[in-house]
């Protein structure tokens, strides 16, 4: 992969996307990874009646979806030694078992500051297989050049 430089990057550039299939096993595994054992993600019996999201089934962690979105940016940024300095996300719809989560990103803004401080803003979106938006995120990525 060619390295991305501040000169070469253009607003509108599209990052390679990724897709993850999720299910209850995914949610259990993410609970272990994150130490977030909230029963809304883990306990099918509890959630049948408790329904924090008004859904009688477990849903995925928001931070799991945010991790997928972030992987879109790190896959693009790390080989070129770019630094993610800020991530801001909003979760718009709970992620249900059996869904595919597709994350796409594009360069939305290019900020001309000075060498070492130039940065871009990447807008990332997570959608399910029906095209419903699950989450959105903005990533500030700083260039060394």
């Amino acid at each position, binding site marked *: 992969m060619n390295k991305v430089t501040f000169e070469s990057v253009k607003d509108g550039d599209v990052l390679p996307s990724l897709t993850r299939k999720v299910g209850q096993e995914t949610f259990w595994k993410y609970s272990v990874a994150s130490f977030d054992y909230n029963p809304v993600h883990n306990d099918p019996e509890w959630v049948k009646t*408790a329904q924090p999201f008004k859904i009688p089934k477990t849903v995925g962690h928001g931070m799991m979806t*945010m991790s997928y979105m972030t992987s879109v940016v790190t896959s693009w940024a790390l080989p070129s030694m770019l630094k993610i300095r800020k991530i801001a*996300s909003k979760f718009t719809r709970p992620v249900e078992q059996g869904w595919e989560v597709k994350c796409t990103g594009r360069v939305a803004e290019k900020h001309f500051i000075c060498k070492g401080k130039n940065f871009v803003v990447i807008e990332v979106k997570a959608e399910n297989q029906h095209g419903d938006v699950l989450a959105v995120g903005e990533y500030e990525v700083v260039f060394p050049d």
Partner: protein
Amino acid sequence: MSKTHFTKNFKTEKQRVFSTDFFTKADKYEAWDEIDFSNLKEVDGENTFEIKAEDLKYYAEAVGDDNPLMIDEEYAKKSPYGGLVAHPLFSTTICFWCVGVEGKGNWIRTPGARNPGQVIEIYEGFKVGETIHIKIKPHDRYIKRGKCYLTYQMDAYNQNNVLKTRMYATLILPRTREDIKKFLTGIRGLED
């Protein structure tokens, strides 16, 4: 609920000791309507986190990221990064571990809590060998469209007091301790 769903996924030392039960001691969790905003002094988290290679590798694997910089120690050592690169969202793991069960910020464990989205500022990536501690203080509390939001500022420092990340951790919470108790018995404790 059977814990084998979790134990079959345990691969690190910390995963084997961290409690999977968010219900026990929930009566000690901070409640939305009880947070004291007159005292904004930052407080240390309950625990510190000594980062090992297994911690970073497992997180990347769990989110399906096969970037060799995150999972292959030898590859990462030979790279310009000089060692494993932490997935940026590994800060989630740091927060839950360091907040602990009875420490400030333990509302993040509340059964019934919902995640609306997060803001993370990254100053330096986490590295193997660092020992992380967090400092926590209330940041904001508000109601929006009938939902109770709470935000704490959680700053993660290494053993040399270098600021690594700042997270504005926000959740939508049950409003009162009585609402939390409803969730503990499997009843919806929210008004929205």
